[in-house]
């Protein structure tokens, strides 16, 4: 919850001292190209998709290489086993597996003779009841943010991810909530209201997707939120976010719920 305090603190330092920004070049170390797995199962009707690609060096500027010769299998704890079918662009599609609350899914990916495995259990669904507008003025200017209204269950350990689109443009902030604070209560915490590139204004249409995510997905996304710039003014020392994939691949296998609501900001 508090991760937004640090950027604010930084903001003070920066505005105070007429900071100057510039684009620089730095020597970079060699990169080991790794497999990237992006695999999701949701509570919506399938098919579900798995994307395989590879990482490239930081100073390369080409399209990310895709993997079209992998084998991808997803099984669940009821004995269903589904071998995915390759479509295109590194994307593989499920045939028969179904996303069900509480069920555990097993992913197996084989690429160039190397095997990668992961498992994820779909959490129970917490209903997104509605969206509300949170209005607050900063320096006399109205700022808007969205509060997703849902009631957190009394059991501890629920995690949520929210994906916000403002007029169909993806807001690339990660909104990861847990019940480490305010467990069992109706949520009052607003989503991040954009950044310098994107923010919510009057008449904007905002869509919010709520995902109930597993603890491993929470850890993965929350680690991403913590990675600011390097240096004395930066965030925590960045690392590849810890994920649930064995075998040394980047990315995540996530079984989660999904539910989307839309709201328009009226005139104030």
């Amino acid at each position: 919850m508090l991760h937004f305090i640090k950027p604010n603190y930084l903001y003070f330092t920066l505005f105070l001292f007429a900071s100057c920004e510039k684009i620089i070049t730095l020597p970079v170390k060699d990169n080991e190209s790794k497999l990237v797995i992006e695999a999701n199962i949701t509570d919506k009707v399938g098919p579900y998709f798995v994307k395989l690609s590879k990482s490239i060096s930081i100073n390369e500027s080409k399209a990310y290489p895709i993997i079209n010769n992998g084998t991808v299998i997803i099984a669940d704890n009821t004995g269903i086993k589904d071998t995915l079918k390759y479509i295109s662009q590194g994307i593989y599609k499920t045939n028969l597996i179904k996303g069900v609350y509480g069920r555990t899914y097993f992913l197996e990916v084989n690429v160039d003779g190397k095997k990668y495995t992961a498992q994820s259990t779909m959490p129970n669904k917490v209903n997104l009841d509605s969206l509300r507008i949170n209005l607050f003025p900063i320096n006399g200017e109205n700022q808007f943010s969205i509060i997703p209204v849902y009631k957190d269950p009394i059991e501890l350990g629920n995690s949520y991810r929210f994906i916000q689109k403002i007029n169909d443009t993806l807001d690339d902030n990660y909104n990861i909530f847990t019940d480490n604070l305010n467990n069992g209560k109706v949520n009052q915490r607003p989503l991040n209201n954009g950044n310098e590139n994107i923010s919510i204004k009057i008449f904007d249409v905002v869509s919010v997707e709520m995902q109930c995510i597993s603890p491993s997905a929470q850890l993965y996304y929350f680690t991403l939120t913590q990675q600011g710039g390097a240096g004395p003014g930066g965030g925590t020392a960045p690392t590849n976010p810890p994920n649930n994939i064995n075998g040394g691949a980047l990315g995540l296998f996530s079984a989660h719920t999904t539910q989307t609501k839309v709201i328009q900001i009226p005139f104030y």
Partner: protein
Amino acid sequence: MSNFFKKYLLLLAIGIIGFTQPIQSQDKTTVNGTIKDKLTGESIMGAVVKVDQLPSVVVTSNEYGFFAISLPKGKYDLKISYVGYEEKRVPITLNGSLTIPIFLENKNQLADVVVASKRKDENLIKAQMGTETLNMKSISKVPVIFGEKDVLKTIQLLPGVKSAGEGNSGFYVRGGAADQNLILLDEAPVYNASHLLGFFSTFNSDAIKDATLIKGNAPAQYGGRLSSVLDVKMKEGNNKNYTVNGGLGLISSRLSIEGPIQEDKSSFILSGRRTYADVFLKATDKFKNNILYFYDFNAKANYKIDDKNRIYFSGYFGNDELGLGSSFNIHWGNKTGTFRWNRVINNKLFLNTSFIYSDYSYNVGLKNGETNFNVNSNIKDVNFKQDYTFYLNPKNTIRYGFNSILHTITPSVFSGTVKNNINKVGRNGLENALYFNNNFKANQQLTFDYGVRLSAYSIMGGDVYNIYKGDAKTSSILLSKNEFGKSYLNIEPRITTNYRINDVSSFKVAYARNVQHLHLLSNATAASPSDQWIGDSYNIKPELADQTSIGYARNFKNNTYELGAELYYKVMQNQLDYKDGTNINTITDVESALLYGVGRAYGFEFLVKKKLGLFSGWISYTLSKTERKINGINEGNWYDAKQDRTHDVSIVTIFELNSKWTVSGVFVYNTGNAVTFPTGKYSFGGQTLYQYASRNANRMPDYHRLDVSVTYENKNKKKREGSWNFSLYNVYGRENAYSISFEDDPADKSKTQIKQTALFRWVPSITYNFKF
């Protein structure tokens, strides 16, 4: 372990030698006294007392100016010297024990000393290593940002001490973390020594007498932190005359008043400071609702009950306020209070009893539409200390005593619309220490300063303590209030040896073990007021550091130049870090996410000073390496700590053109901090993510900067003194990197651009200081 015993036996052996010096004959008598400044009545610590007739006798005054020497009956001449003061010769006739007050007179000439040593060749005679004392007068001409002289900024120009960077008042000593420095203000620990995002320190130079930094080889009366002790002492206040001091600057002003309560018996000093950057913010459209200021206040009074008893009271409080309209605010502040009672028990034994209180708290408030909450953290100490100085004979000065501290640490407690899931309560811990230290002058060449500190930390009740093995919680212990849990007991042996090779050079060797029971967890690479302290627990063991150092000191040209070189090697155990993706402020039990490991640091420090003359200054250079190895970070391999900087250079020059004009300059250069830059990138969820390899394998760009300041002093008028200080920070406008981030190039998303943010280029400032 056997190694440890060897060291211990060695200590014991030296102890025995120390005490089996020729038994003193019965007709020995003692002369003691207090050394003070004649003009202000301030007591002088570290003044050197010599006996003309016995060249081997050298005694230095303690923190309260007290000294004692045992001598056979007879006639002697005492020679008392302290830098910046006229040497005083006092003839005495010892028939029985004698108490004499000694007043030293300020040298009536240009302040000709930059870094004050108490005696011109003090660096050669003392068995103390890695120690520097700065007095306020001597640092007043060193340029600093915003024109505000600052002891914390000046010590960062010394070898082995590294600044944590702009916008950060933390400092690193010999590879230690910022929380491994014990910062004392009149004996009271100061938990956050920074104001205004680190651009100012909590030490108002008008209220400060001097500051001593000891880099890891502190005598046994100090303890509790691994890397260093910064012992800051407040002025006592002039007990002869009333004086008013002050300064007006562009963003801050200060004022202090001192004077006698009863002449020669008691005095006081009151000193306050406030910034007014917020006044300027109000004038701007964009930031008019922003709040940004700090203030602090120092007060001290002392009262001489009789010749044998004196009491002191000193206090500090300061507050920082930062806010964004009504939607967001942070405030933090320290409060400290010290009550001391000096007592001369007999002519050889001096006792100081202290009651100390220290409180640091921070509060973050957020009001964002309907969300409205506060987060509060707090650390409180109540501290009782008795410290004896026993002048056994001219060869042995013994310090012994004990110290008991009750810590109460309350981690982030939420209130308002956001609440913790479990009721977070403060944890108590009791830290006890018993120490013994002897300064033993074996002969004119050889001096030993050795001692041992026995420290204990007891976990106390009021909270549940969980025990973890790896990731799993194995059990929980509920301690009720005032119930004691586990205790950690540590023995901390220390020894420093000084061998004076000849009149101009000396060789030193030292070993010390330090133990730390309080640990700072930080969410970021930079120090922030929201960083959280935690005491030892069932999982967290005391941090240990063993430091060995050797040094060589040599003076040139009749002590005009001083050269010092030291090598150190330090091994640290039970170092703390936490797992990736941990939010230490909201996690229910932060101990579930901690990682443990070891650290090592080694380096070479070099300092050459020109102490006297119209042109003075110093060059300091440090070559060092600092590494950490933590289970669960960087695959358990050694990695460079963030504060590892290979080269660190500071050059300070002060040139007094005439009695009115002084020009000074500071140049600093250091290798960039060790940081982690991405090596690769990939696409995930429609966004570019970065791939990282080893921790801290990259470097920030080199940091360097030149500051210049000009001081004009007007001493024409008899009673009133005024001075103007003009300074320019970062003269050649180097954009030093504050942070570096990687992002998609907006022009071509397939490219990555590296963006560097620098805080500022030039910072000019003007300050007017006055005294009447």
